[in-house]
């Protein structure tokens, strides 16, 4: 099952929820995405969550905080979470903002994240 609303899309693939955040997401939309993801992690017993932010050209303090919360919520619901696709310019800007994304594991690509989820569950 998949859904795609304004904030982003969520697809279930082999027990892993793939979350794609849309370009230029608004604050309201990303909060909606957070609710939808929490529901689906619980109802579909996802083992893992991969949040793809490669479409995002900017991550400001609000979006950064919501992404950190997404990862924390998934972890509390017993799903391992990876953040993938961060652009170099976004990483450098987050450092300048003094933003940390605690408890958020990052992987360079979707393939890396899936490999790590598989090796941990096997």
């Amino acid at each position: 099952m998949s859904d795609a609303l304004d904030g982003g899309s969520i697809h279930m693939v082999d027990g892993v929820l793939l979350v794609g955040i849309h370009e230029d997401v608004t604050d309201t939309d990303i909060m909606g995405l957070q609710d939808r993801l929490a529901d689906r992690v619980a109802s579909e017993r996802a083992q893992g969550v991969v949040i793809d932010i490669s479409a995002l050209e900017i991550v400001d303090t609000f979006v950064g905080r919501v992404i950190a919360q997404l990862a924390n919520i998934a972890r509390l619901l017993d799903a391992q979470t990876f953040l993938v696709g961060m652009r170099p310019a976004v990483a450098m800007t987050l450092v300048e903002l003094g933003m940390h994304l605690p408890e958020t594991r990052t992987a360079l690509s979707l393939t890396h994240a899936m490999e790590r989820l598989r090796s941990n569950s096997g």
Partner: protein
Amino acid sequence: MIREEGKLVERISLRSDRDVARARRVVTQAMDKLGARALGRTRFVTAVSEIARNAVVHGQGGDISVFSHDRSKQVSVICEDGGPGIEDIDTALQDGFTTGRGLGRGLGGAQRLCDVFEIESTPDTGVTIRMAVNI
């Protein structure tokens, strides 16, 4: 410093988070026209996003004007809100300071991401922030 008079690209009324997204798009396009690179664009648009959101969340809305300075290759914005102003600007610019539920990194962070950052605040007229980036 801002080296020449800019021409107005667009003035956006800031009422909701959709207007903040609109401000990000307009600034992105103005920078693209002058040939900005990815890092410079991401840094400045992030700063604009912080400031525009502050105006909506803390400043009871406002407006933001985007200017293109074609000869000196700069993009600038002026953001004015209609809120109560900031009591102590120096404190507000420090990381970790917040009056709300935020992280308190927005204002000081935005300042670090710009080449020009000027802030004025009075209780009567709210907060006015002028920011610019060299391309």
